[in-house]
């Protein structure tokens, strides 16, 4: 019988009107990496908040047994005191403070006189950075580092608190493949060398399969099962079955490919960085999109994918933009977003919370936000028609909300994304650029998003998908362009594309490009 470091017994958490968790069981063996899988809204994050003391003892039912003792956490410091540290999906670092200051924030290393001992702080920070394999000066401001490195700093911060159980909520969702691999390797190292137990929430099932010893599946607030991860090929499918409660024999819905005439053509598109003069972010990019076609843009993070899309969409990114854009063979000039929308372009951002939605407003007004002119006569909005439109989209897009007057911030990620898509579909766009359309949303909702994309192209629209998940591009696109360091390095019809081939093109560096200017 292996020793359990953590047992959560019959955890039930009720919010007004909703039972978020009911009798959830979770037991974690000392020294393992334990995965938690479940659709968005299944209750994973709620469970972790119960564990870490965000929801204090008394607001839930059931027992938390840590290290053989029933724990009554009243706050986050209580759980941290026991060595339980949670790293949230949205990183909680302060950009203007240095690496060392962030690591010891709230836990400052003081000298005998009560003042902060900077030498000691930086020295210890250095040692912690070494443990996580990060070679940075501890006095560097955090904002100068990429997301991958910031994630490592979060782990260093956890280590500084003598962590015994590390909880990571979607640790790799914002990382590229290299950084993800590094992070997962680090978890293994921490486990083997320091015996640190980890709980990892992830939507990336291949990561769960790769790094976890066991995984617990949660669905609709119930524990479905805990399974041992082995090498068997069917393991991912088994997890998916548990998560969605049905077989997803195909993760990508089938689609008839009926491709028509050219709709959008971009030629020699060059974009400079908005604040760093001389830095070219998109370099001489050219591509075409045809009617009824799904075109993929593959590239690692920082390749200029989002920058390309946003600069096309009414010059909302970059400066000194040059190049030509044609719709149906005629050159168009989209100098701002409203002109881009009028020309039939739409751009659904990769960061829907920051750039896509007004989270404090309701579903209805978010759906109409980009096309209020359709609801308005001489500047006056028809509020009743607006609600009717929103209701239509709630039905047709299967947005799960009790009412279209519900605040968008209260919806799950998948449903928020459906609101974003509704907004752009309602704007009557001909070409929809979807930037990471399935980031941070669960398998079931992903399938729905793919179905929506198929419905769009079947109706004669064109879709550009920007994604760092190659299987997703291979599963949904007709043609894929690869982007590397701001340069279009290849164009591959999906029939000829393989992950290896795309990856080669995505990492190819054009000889002329100056390496120094890209961080």
């Amino acid at each position, binding site marked *: 019988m292996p020793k359990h470091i953590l047992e959560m017994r019959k955890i039930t958490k009720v919010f007004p009107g909703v039972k978020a968790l009911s009798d959830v069981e979770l037991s974690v063996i000392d020294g393992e990496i334990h995965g938690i899988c479940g659709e968005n809204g299944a209750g994973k994050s709620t469970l972790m908040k119960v564990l870490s003391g965000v929801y204090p003892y008394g607001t839930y039912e059931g027992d938390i047994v840590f290290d053989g003792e029933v724990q009554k956490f009243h706050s986050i410091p209580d759980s941290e005191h026991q060595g339980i540290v949670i790293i949230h999906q949205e990183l909680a670092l302060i950009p203007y403070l240095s690496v060392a200051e962030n690591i010891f924030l709230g836990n400052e290393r003081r000298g005998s006189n009560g003042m902060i001992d900077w030498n000691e702080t930086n020295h210890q920070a250095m040692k912690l950075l070494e443990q996580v394999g990060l070679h940075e000066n501890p006095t560097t401001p955090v904002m100068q580092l990429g997301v991958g490195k910031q994630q490592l700093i979060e782990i260093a911060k956890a280590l500084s608190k003598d962590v015994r159980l590390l909880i990571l909520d979607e640790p790799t969702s914002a990382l590229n493949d290299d950084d993800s691999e590094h992070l997962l390797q680090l978890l293994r190292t921490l486990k083997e060398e320091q015996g640190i137990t980890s709980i990892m929430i992830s939507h990336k099932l291949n990561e769960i399969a790769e790094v976890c010893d066991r995984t617990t599946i949660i669905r609709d607030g119930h524990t479905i099962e805990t399974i041992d991860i082995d090498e068997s090929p069917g393991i991912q499918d088994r997890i998916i079955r548990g998560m969605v409660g049905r077989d997803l024999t195909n993760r990508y819905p089938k689609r008839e490919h009926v491709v028509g005439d050219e709709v959008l053509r971009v030629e020699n598109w060059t974009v400079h960085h908005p604040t760093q003069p001389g830095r070219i972010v998109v370099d001489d990019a050219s591509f075409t999109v045809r009617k009824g076609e799904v075109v993929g843009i593959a590239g690692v993070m920082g390749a200029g994918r989002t920058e390309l899309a946003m600069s096309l969409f009414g010059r909302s990114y970059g400066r000194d933009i040059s190049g030509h854009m044609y719709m149906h063979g005629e050159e168009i000039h989209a100098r701002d977003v409203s002109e881009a929308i009028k020309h039939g372009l739409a751009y659904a951002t990769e960061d829907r919370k920051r750039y896509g939605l007004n989270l404090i407003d309701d579903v209805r007004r978010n759906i109409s936000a980009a096309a209020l002119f359709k609801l308005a006569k001489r500047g006056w909005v028809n*509020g009743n028609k607006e609600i009717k439109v929103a209701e239509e989209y709630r039905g047709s897009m299967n947005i799960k909300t009790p009412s279209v007057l519900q605040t968008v911030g209260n919806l799950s990620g998948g449903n928020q994304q459906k609101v974003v898509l509704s907004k752009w579909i309602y704007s009557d766009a001909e070409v929809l650029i979807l930037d990471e359309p399935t980031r941070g949303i669960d398998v079931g909702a992903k399938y729905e998003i793919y179905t929506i994309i198929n419905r769009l192209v079947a109706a004669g629209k064109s879709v550009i998908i920007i994604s760092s998940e190659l299987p997703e591009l291979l599963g949904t696109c007709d043609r894929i362009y690869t982007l590397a360091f701001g340069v279009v390095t290849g164009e591959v019809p999906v029939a000829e594309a393989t992950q290896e081939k795309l990856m080669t093109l995505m990492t190819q560096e054009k000889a002329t490009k100056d390496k120094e200017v890209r961080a």
Partner: protein
Amino acid sequence: MTGTANIRELLTRNLRTSGIYIAFVAIIALFAILTDGTLLSPGNVTNLILQYSYILILAIGMVMVIIAGHIDLSVGSVVALTGAVSAVLVIREGMPWWVGVLAALGTGVLIGAWQGFWVAFVGIPAFITTLAGMLLFRGLTLLVLSNISLSPFPSSYQKIAGGFQNGILGGPGYDVFTLVVFAVAVVGFAFSAWRTRRSRIAYEQPVEAFPLFILKLVAVALVVMWFAWQLANARGLPNVLIILAVLVIAYTLVTTRTVFGRHVYAIGGNLAAAMLSGVKVRWVNFGVMLNMGVLASVAGIVYSSRSNGAQPAAGNMFELDAIAACFIGGAAVTGGVGRVTGAIVGGLIMAVMSNGMQLMGVDQSVQAVVKGLVLLLAVAFDVYNKRRAGAR
């Protein structure tokens, strides 16, 4: 989705918005008792409207500025400057009253455009732009007035804010005309509520139960007619109340029903998302500041008319009262939330408190302390509510 909402739902659904009305009624009741009913006497009700009208006018513009995520600290100085411009033309140069009015409005447009330019197109935070404006326009006021007060205005100008519409239909001891105007307004309100209800039903949206709907109309009618009765028993219908009513109705419609109004909310709610949805953020910000300038000049006209002159120190601290009215009225410090009616009620709460305390003979210093605490508590209540809503 058809169905009817019951009373409890109506109250709890928007505690945040309905809370303020409850507080308003409570404060009125409190001061009515403390002042032995003087607060609600005909003369005092009229006086209350006249005395705080310019703050309410400022609050209408300010709430839009705050919804858009800005602030305007300059309105007090703008009130002074526009009043001064008007006074110089009408009193010193002897021009007719309407020239003064137009010049003041024109000054307001220029000031609004000036501040809008810096905020929207140059990107200076409104806090800084209007802090500069506060000094700038106060300085210009001193300059225009050569550092001395000007008075009195001719009676035609005084009537703008000090005049009444009464006696038109005569009346035995009370003004029939006032009652008729209010009765028409009540009927108009009932009719438009009825039409809204009908069209909501046509679009298959939930409406409140029919008896409740009638109850609400009757309650509104009773309160409004009582108010009219008080006015009719005093001096009749104040001109400034007509100005105020027109502004409140117009701006309620602008904020809730127009594309412009919706864009203001969108910008305050999430600037980046609004920009990426095709909202012309700069022009909307410019419009909001321009509008504030115009409303500040209206307030300047009303204030100069009521005080019968222009003083170098006019409008001092008005900005703070207007801002306080918005926040008491439920506007969010972070932008994106707020209502014109809320700001008006917030302003009226301040007005009733000041007026009530004055009637009781409370010391100025104590008045300031109480008003400060009320502002703090109102925002604390708002923050508490939001935290409770966000706890999920």
